């Protein structure tokens, strides 16, 4: 498990009170019964933890699978590293 993956699993589990072993790369936040406002909090925790800005209204981050979310965050992190 990559560190991004690890951290994002932790954030979802903590922010949404979801058992960590229920979360898989293929689950969507919806599958995990995550309320839309909890999803917004997940994105906030991710932004705060990684110091990135997650774009608005891109389904990859809030409506896709956990895998999509992690890939998106990795891309944002790569863009941030490249910009430095």
């Amino acid at each position: 498990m990559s560190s991004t993956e690890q951290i994002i699993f932790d954030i979802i589990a903590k922010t949404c009170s979801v058992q960590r072993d229920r979360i898989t790369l293929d689950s969507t936040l919806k599958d995990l019964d995550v309320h839309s406002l909890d999803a917004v909090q997940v994105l906030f925790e991710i932004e705060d933890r990684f110091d990135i800005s997650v774009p608005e209204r891109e389904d990859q981050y809030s409506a896709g699978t956990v895998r999509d979310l992690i890939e998106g965050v990795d891309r944002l992190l790569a863009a941030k590293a490249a910009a430095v």
Partner: protein
Amino acid sequence: MRRVVITGLGCVSALGNSATATWAGMREGRAGIGPLTGLNDPTLRTTIAAQARDFVSSEHFDEKRLVLLDPVSQYALVAAREAVVQAGIGFPPDRAERTAVIIGTGIGGASTQDQMARRLYAEGNPRVHPMAIVRVMPNAPASQISLEFGLRGPVFAVASACASSNHALGQALMLLQTGTADVALAGGVEACITVGTVKAWEAMRVMADDTCRPFSKGRRGLVLGEGAGVFVLETLEHAQARGAHILAEFVGAGMSADAADIVMPDASGAARAMRAALVQGGLAPEEVDYINAHGTGTQANDPTETRAIRALFGRHADALAVSSTKSMHGHALGGGGAIELVAVIGALREGVVPPTINYLGPDPDCDLNVVPNIAQRRPVRAALSNSFAFGGLNAVLALRRWD
């Protein structure tokens, strides 16, 4: 129970610094939403807002007075002055003691709070202005109106987020109905376009980046606004005794709480508030020709409000007009309901229903006559004005045309 009428209205909004200008803008379907100005923070994502752009403080207040006044109080005072002038009412001692002031605000002195925090925490300046407290307190707008006009009856603020105006107007209605006061200056105000407030709304990811398109396909969220609405309310007896020109009858205020979720709206809570307003106002659903919707333009509100209206009005839902003037003056939070009451009174008096502008086409989940883009001429015998707040708090006003 005594009957209550409205005899004066005043407003400050993105459509203008008076109720007259605001109503003219609403009739024309004018856009009050424009580029966000005045906030100097490169990290803001938001680029648009419905600001009271033409409001110049020094045109209304001298320097000494301004020290005491956050914009939230300035807007409320300017609106109150217009309402008092229109009502042609003075306040000799006997009347002043029987006059209430109830002003809703969701936040209070947001700019003062923001500036104070910046000085303390960002600039490391330990000195806070000695008038910071009296500028920030949410009752400042009500107190300042009381001071300016010498009003000595019940005076207080009401806070229920985006329903603050309607809850305040509902409180005033009850004070007059029960004989606790004869006259009330009531309404609501917000001056929330500060870096802190805008960022807090951004964080919820409910803000539109293009414009506000309530009930429309392609809507992308709400746009923050600001401003005030203040109204002169009187018992019918009091208004007639002084020969006042009556603008509308204020017949009911329905209130309810969802007790479901802190932010997600609930159709049954909204419908219960609308029903309570009709019952209190002695109105049959078929008498309602216009509803000024809460209509924020978010994914969550608009379909829920549509379901609530359909559930309550049944087949009549297809006959009445429902518009969201937030498409023009933005979402002024605690001031919203009061600005929207200007639309309701205009519709009752002139038989013109203001439009929902920026409308791109129907959303099947919002299938009402939402008066797309252009005002509709139609007789309005009675109207409702909806406000639904975070915290699950609903307040709906019912008004009747005065013939």
